[in-house]
């Protein structure tokens, strides 16, 4: 079955979702309060597969913004520790994009290398990803600059809208299993290769025209620390930064987290939550904080994505060009502006 292409008409998708959700948790991009975000689907929700970008990336499904690690409590004078169970339910994230899937590969490098993050690994194991090619990329998209092809998403199942149909192509064993379980709703779409290729050509042609697609990353990557770190440009670039965490929390690759305790009535709930390098207590230790100014914190975000991460990961950048930060920064600052500012004069005075 692997390698084949299957089709479903758009108006039957709701039925497909019901079938998927009956067996497992199903995450879909859903509109609520004027914004589209991935959430666990329930019947009757306003599913928006046509919206290219969700406000927040889908990384929550694998690396939730908040999760309990264990709880301690005193019971009859004794201390009891209950470790949180690992994820045991299968789930599907339907409607990710090529950039989102590439973002997960970045998280994999962090959480699946030794020592493996068991919470993340369990979710990766049990989650199946269906990614849709971007029929209508947006102006803030620049995945192409990072070598990502919006027309052929990396996923367990890749999908393309073609006319009134959604075409699905399993690309992994997990994906094949998922498609097999849905045979009742799907029809084999023989000869759909041509339709997919046509859609791909259309997408690639649009991508070419996007303003940031040709962003050059020359001068970034491994070995650039010294030259970039002390550049006077940071002083100018960071100024309008509000020190909010928007860019880090909408980002599909930001992976920093904090571990904190929440006092319950007779114990402690130890949890981890996403952290943001924009925040004043980021990496605060008993001995103090090694970044005490907003300039340093601002610089950290871009240096991490464009220099330190590639240095430690065979040149892989930890930005996938999804452009969510471009869309949502309250001060209109973003990684594109940073990259361009440096390419203008190399960061030297």
């Amino acid at each position: 079955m692997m390698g084949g292409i299957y089709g479903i008409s758009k108006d039957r998708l709701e039925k497909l979702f019901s079938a998927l959700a009956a067996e497992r948790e199903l995450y879909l991009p859903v509109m609520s309060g004027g914004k589209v975000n991935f959430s666990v689907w329930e019947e009757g929700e306003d599913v928006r597969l046509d919206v290219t970008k969700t406000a927040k990336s889908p990384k929550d499904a694998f690396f939730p913004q908040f999760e309990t690690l264990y709880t301690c409590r005193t019971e009859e004078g004794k201390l009891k520790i209950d470790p949180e169970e690992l994820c045991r339910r299968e789930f599907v994230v339907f409607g990710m994009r090529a950039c989102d899937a590439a973002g997960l590969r970045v998280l994999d490098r962090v959480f699946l290398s030794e020592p493996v993050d068991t919470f993340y690994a369990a979710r990766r194991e049990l989650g199946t990803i269906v990614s849709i090619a971007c029929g209508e990329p947006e102006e803030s998209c620049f995945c192409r600059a990072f070598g990502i092809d919006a027309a052929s998403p990396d996923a367990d199942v890749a999908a393309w809208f073609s006319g009134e149909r959604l075409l699905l192509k399993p690309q992994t064993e997990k994906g094949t299993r998922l498609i097999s379980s849905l045979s009742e709703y799907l029809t084999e779409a023989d000869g759909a290769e041509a339709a997919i290729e046509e859609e791909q050509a259309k997408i690639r042609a649009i991508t070419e025209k996007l303003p940031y697609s040709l962003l050059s990353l020359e001068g970034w990557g491994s070995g650039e620390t010294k030259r970039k770190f002390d550049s006077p440009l940071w002083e100018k670039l960071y100024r309008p930064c509000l020190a909010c965490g928007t860019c880090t929390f909408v980002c599909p690759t930001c992976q920093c987290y904090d571990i904190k305790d929440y006092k319950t009535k007779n114990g402690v709930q130890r949890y981890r939550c996403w952290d943001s390098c924009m925040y004043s207590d980021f990496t605060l230790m008993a001995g103090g904080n090694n970044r005490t100014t907003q300039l340093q914190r601002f610089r950290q975000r871009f240096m991490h994505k464009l220099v330190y991460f590639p240095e430690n990961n065979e040149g892989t950048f930890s930005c996938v060009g999804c452009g969510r930060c471009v869309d949502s920064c309250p001060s209109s600052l973003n990684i594109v502006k940073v990259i361009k500012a440096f390419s203008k004069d190399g960061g030297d005075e």
Partner: protein
Amino acid sequence: MQELKKRLCELLSDGTVARVLGWRRGETSFDPEPAFFGSAEELSDFVYDGFCGANLSKMMIEAARLEGKTAVCLKPCDTYSYNQLIKEHRVDREKTYIIGVGCRGKLDIDKIRALGIKGILSISGTECDGDGDTLLIKTVYGDKSCKYADAMLSRCHVCRGKEHKIYDEIIGESRDTTDGDRFSEVEKLEAMAPRERFEFFRRELSRCIRCNACRNVCPACSCRKCVFDSNNFDSAQKANVDPFEEKMFHIIRAFHVAGRCTDCGECSRVCPENIPLHLFNRKFIKDINTFYGEYTAGEDAEAKCPLTDFDFGDAEPGDVTSGR
């Protein structure tokens, strides 16, 4: 804009000010960023158009610590925030040269996107001194257009008026863009049953990602260290530990800025999840008006706020709960 730019250049070159706080042209015609300009040469990147919605008054706290005077561009609604900051001793009036800039309503790129316009390459018709009522939008999917008013920030539909409350000089004309009632959304909430109202806020706040953008942009949130940034406080700065938490942050914030909030609308403008945060504040403003008489925070830099003042005619707590 040319007149404004020319004047700013003069102020810099004749030494009246050491720097200018305005907006720098972005990568596109819809992403200018707040910026300080130290010389006439740097001002070549200066821009002032429909997308310059950011309220710069809070950045004047930082400017007060810099040497010399700063010229700041304030829109009529921003001047309320600046007055309030004077009242709270956060800014230095002596070190400020206020240019009251004209405003005909500011634009919201999200409003344009909500009209289904994607792949935006450039937008024209955004000039502050123009009177065209249409925006022409070039996109990768062809040319589009929309009405200027349909792309305005929500706050501009309940504009505070075209009068600058404090300034050294005014450049450009302002227009009152009001076409709705400022308290109608609050009245809708008041008409709800408590459970329904609670459900409304629960649903809206459930989207909160704790990015703190609303707090950080808020001119009334000028504490040097916020209680939510304290490590000794059980309620963390960056996580909603339980469903109550996400409400607590916003409710505490709304109480803290009550009587000081000028309804500048920055909180709702910056929220990446489109949460109508201004509704909390506007409810407080409406209540203060009801119980203490009409009061506008930031109208001037001297008047005492009813909540920090006392007189024997003040409402009693019982009057409030029974809705006198």
